[in-house]
């Protein structure tokens, strides 16, 4: 895990020069760059389609022209998804760059870079931490997950193991 976080950090630093997906050493990963429409997955699946893709409260995906739908499950930031990255492009076309995780358990997409089409600029998919810091002024943003009020409330109530009073050996 530490190696993966280090790799992600180095990749982020080198990103302006590379702007292409980096391997994360995950079984079944494939580097991929493709055009797609940013979609609200619940909308595509059930036809329940608010205009704003759920305003950040719904999982977003990438719908390719060949009809393949990829849930965009992960971005560059530790322990963070992609809604912050993709919501500005709701129902718009983008060029997505990252990793397809082709696992028998599920097929996911890790978004590393995104570029709005037809002529937008590449953006590194690391905006969750910045958005979190903006929403939580005064709190250290480096490890958002250790300082998030909701996380602290849940872990404070139930403990790190999820069962009140239970301690690790």
């Amino acid at each position, binding site marked *: *895990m*530490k190696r993966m976080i280090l790799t992600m950090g180095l990749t982020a630093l080198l990103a302006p020069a590379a702007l292409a997906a980096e391997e994360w050493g*995950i*079984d079944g990963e494939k580097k991929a760059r493709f055009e797609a*429409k940013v*979609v*609200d*997955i*619940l*909308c*595509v*699946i*059930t*036809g*329940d*389609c608010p205009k704003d893709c*759920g305003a*950040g*409260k*719904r*999982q977003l995906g990438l*719908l390719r022209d060949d*009809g*393949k*739908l*990829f*849930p965009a*499950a*992960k971005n560059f*930031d*530790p*322990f*963070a*998804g*992609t*809604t*912050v990255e993709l919501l500005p492009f709701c129902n718009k076309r983008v060029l997505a760059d990252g990793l397809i*995780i*082709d*696992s028998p*358990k*599920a*097929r*996911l997409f890790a978004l590393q870079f995104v570029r709005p089409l037809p002529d937008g600029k590449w953006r590194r998919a690391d905006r*969750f931490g910045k958005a979190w810091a903006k929403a939580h002024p005064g709190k250290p943003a480096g490890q*958002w*997950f250790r300082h*998030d009020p*909701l*996380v602290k409330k*849940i*872990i404070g109530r*139930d403990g*790190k*193991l*999820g*069962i009140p009073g*239970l301690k*690790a*050996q």
Partner: protein
Amino acid sequence: MRTFASLALGAALALAVSAGGTQAAQGKRVKVTGELIDTWCYVTGIMYARGTAHHQCAVWCAVGGIPVSIRGDDGKVYMILKVEGDATSVAAPKLVTIQSHTVSVDGDLYVRDGVNYLIVNQVADDKGIVNLTHKDYGIVPFGE
């Protein structure tokens, strides 16, 4: 008659396109029993991602907006898009507070492109956290 049929087909296609660019399918009623998990850690296998050992990380990821799934007793992963009428699936209040619990749910299943998407209509049973994996794995990741 042929003209009428063409118009009807056109109208049907237009309705399909308006629903997000593809035709929404009908879900299949299912009952799923299993453990609420962080989808990314479990699917990628980057760390041990079940039970008490991974609970803290599972909460981090759920609050961070990574999809929450049920790892069913049948071994399948069911990605949750909606819970008991609430279409919130990013840091969903109803999910982050019961992360790692073993639950039984009634829902509608949609299978598409290698993913099982689940609309949870009702959480019928919640047994809490029963998978005491910290005895073997400690706290994952970081050991603290």
